[in-house]
């Protein structure tokens, strides 16, 4: 156990996790920013109206990719990377809740997670993908003691 702990807390491992997580967010942010209206369509597909007024979904679509971009840059460049990792995990947690509620309601569509081209259907695979990406973020966010 302590070996695992030492591994997870090792500066090189954490730095690698930060760069990996940052690259994931850069890869997901850029296609969305390039085609905002496609991403807005994906956000509408989630039918968030029980949680959020439909009128606000465009604001969400405008800002999410840029927050991803800034957090991704922070992680990759190592400027306040732990803060970047916190934002990364928090955003992924929100996305995961979105996927779970969509699945629970039987919605079926491409999530637009990595823009139009890299979209995958909502489902168990997408959920597993999100959780493993979150795990990378958690390693990047671990506090060194």
């Amino acid at each position, binding site marked *: 156990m302590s070996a695992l702990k030492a591994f997870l807390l090792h500066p090189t491992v954490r730095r690698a996790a930060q760069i990996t997580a940052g690259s994931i967010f850069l890869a997901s942010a850029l296609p969305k920013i390039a085609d905002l209206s496609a991403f*807005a369509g994906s956000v509408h597909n989630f039918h968030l109206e029980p949680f959020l007024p439909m009128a606000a979904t465009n*604001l969400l679509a405008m800002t999410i990719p840029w*927050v991803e971009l800034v957090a991704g840059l922070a992680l990759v460049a190592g*400027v306040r*990377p*732990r803060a970047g990792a916190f934002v990364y995990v928090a955003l992924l947690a929100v996305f995961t809740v979105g996927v779970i509620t969509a699945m629970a*309601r039987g919605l079926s569509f491409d999530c637009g997670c990595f823009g139009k081209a890299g979209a995958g259907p909502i489902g168990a695979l997408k959920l597993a993908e999100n959780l493993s990406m979150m795990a990378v973020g958690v390693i990047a*966010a671990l506090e060194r003691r």
Partner: protein
Amino acid sequence: MDRWWSDGTETGSRLWQGVVAIAATGCLLGLAQNALVRYGDPKDGLAWKYTPPTLDSLEDIAPSSADGKPGGSNPLPPDMNDPLQIGGSVTAGVPDIPDVSRPIQIQISKVKAFFDAKAGAIIDAREPSEYAEGHIPGALNLPYDEVVTDPERLEKFDPQGKPIIIYCGGGTCELSMNLGFAMVNAGKKKVLVFMGGWPEWATSGYPIAKGATPEGA
């Protein structure tokens, strides 16, 4: 710290400042980008306040000739531009619905117009038990859950060229919207969703039918 990058050791207020800074910077950049595109040339970008497409806003999304579909060169009939001519009136005809690539919301007055003119294929997306308790006369029961497990039901459904009007139990009407998207994905055109659904119809004093068949038992 003697180097410009760190491997992520910030804690406490330094950490939370970073989190807020990243979130705020991202939001501002996003809003700024959209503002630039929206007020730039050519004007593009997202509306600040999203409004789901409704029948009255069809002009905005009617297929253009650029899509290679018919209808672009064919302007909407004048009554489409004046909802008063259609809304609430029983004798005025029904609007001509262009082929659209996603479900469109429709208000009860227009549902009634389609109902009176028998010009729409009305679909009840609720469960058979709810359907039997009461439904719009002539409405076909096509529960969304059954379409998910048996997509052939959707393939077999033929609206005979009429616009499809889907309704369910009201509220956010997820069943209708989901079924609407499923229909569009299955290649159906002219898919309308009546968001008010059964509660609004039943309380409007319009005809209802009970039982398991479209026209009632």
